[in-house]
């Protein structure tokens, strides 16, 4: 995979984290929102491990 494609993927993953955290802040106190975001963030974490970490060592 070329590096620019990897960079684009990482930008999208970063945006996902920002959006999910913003949603959690906005929905603070609504358990249904907070817990759904926690599950989303657990998978964003895996995208960071599987994709973004690679970009940083290339």
């Amino acid at each position, binding site marked *: *995979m070329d590096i620019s494609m*990897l960079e684009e993927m990482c930008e999208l993953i970063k945006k996902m984290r920002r959006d999910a955290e913003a949603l959690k802040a906005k929905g603070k106190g609504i358990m249904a929102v907070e817990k759904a975001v*926690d*599950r989303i*963030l*657990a*998978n964003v*974490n*895996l995208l960071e*491990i*599987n*994709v973004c*970490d*690679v970009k*940083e*060592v*290339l």
Partner: protein
Amino acid sequence: MPKDQRIYWNPLLETLPREKLRALQTKKFRRILDWAYSNSPFYRNFYKEAGLEPGDIKTFEDIRKVPKMEKGMMREVQQKDPFPYGDMIAVPIEKVTAFRQTSGTTGTPVYQACTWDDWEWWAETWCYILYAQGYRESDRVFLPFGYNIFVAFWAAHYGAERLGCEVIPGGALNTEARILRMKDLKCTAFMATPTYILGMAETAKNKLGLDPARDLDIAMITSAGEPGGCIPATKKRMEEAWGAKVYDHIGLTEVGSWSYECTEQPGGQHVLEAYFLVEIEDLETGEIIEKPGRNGKMIITSFDRLAKPSIRFDTKDVIRWAEYDCPCGRTFRLIDGGIVGRADDITKVKGVLLAPTAIEAVVRSIPELGPEFEVIVSKKGELDDILLRVEIMPGKEGEEQSILSHLKDQLRVRTNLGYRVEVHPYGSLPRYEVKAKRFKDIRKKET
């Protein structure tokens, strides 16, 4: 010629050039060290006492300066708050969503805390394993294990689901019912310990009149929990009994699912090096072994497990780097022949170092012998005595003398020791579902 990238779960990590992989490992080690130092009172005190701060670790070689931790420490911290894990955990207790524990075969169980992030991470590691073993979305996977307090195949279940397989939990069923469900549902894969894989095949034949290789649709079996999957003779028996490929996996409750065999079956197991750091330490000098072929004990770090970090965990498992590469194209290193012993299991008998896995390799290589055996080391006066109990396969009783003579010869060649051999009726030695206890050293109790 480059491989088709679709054979990998994540080609970005699995084909990363070695030098980049090492840079990734250094970066990830520093990250987990920093996390543990900042969030786990146990680790902070442990490192402070050793005069170490996370900033001291700058290079890959610096990692060796970090003190190792042992299972005994995990037990000790459980006396402290927060209950029941102690101060090794690095997240607020309310963030823990799953409890598991070790089996406690070597002492008090060690409790394991996972957050949802950890659990997703654990399932993800299983995706690397199962995908490399050929599991795909079209597979129907049966899990014939007691879903309980031990981690065992729980993460495998979630991993297979995450990969997209159809997963059938075969928990509270007896062996016959499990086999029949696997048959009726045309399952294509299952996962179990080597002992149970062989035991199920025996039950299918003897109690149900089924030949698993002919009457079931199993194409892949993942073997875990015992060394049998790394022992060629045991693997051959399992593959023949089921008419399926058997792939080994090695994991540790305290650490995670760190090693696996791929479909190329090169004789060794890949280390999931993007998720774990495996170091091999010379048993006598303590130096880290980089060269292939030399046995040492495994020190392992889990890079991404956050609730209860495992950093430079001294497993006491004996492994060695393989002298060969794998044609699958993964750059993750191979260990040769899986776990070849336990640093505290390898005992001196009659002045010779003996690994119980060597006896298993011999017994399982003789097709006229049953799959079960028992070894009892005792003292007769001042001398060590090794009693080996075996079973002879039905129909082969008339060949007992020649079978036993071949067995004794092979044992002498492989282990340099002489044995008293007792033949027991077929099916009379204990059958185990998990954690088989075939090796008993009763010398200490007698003195």
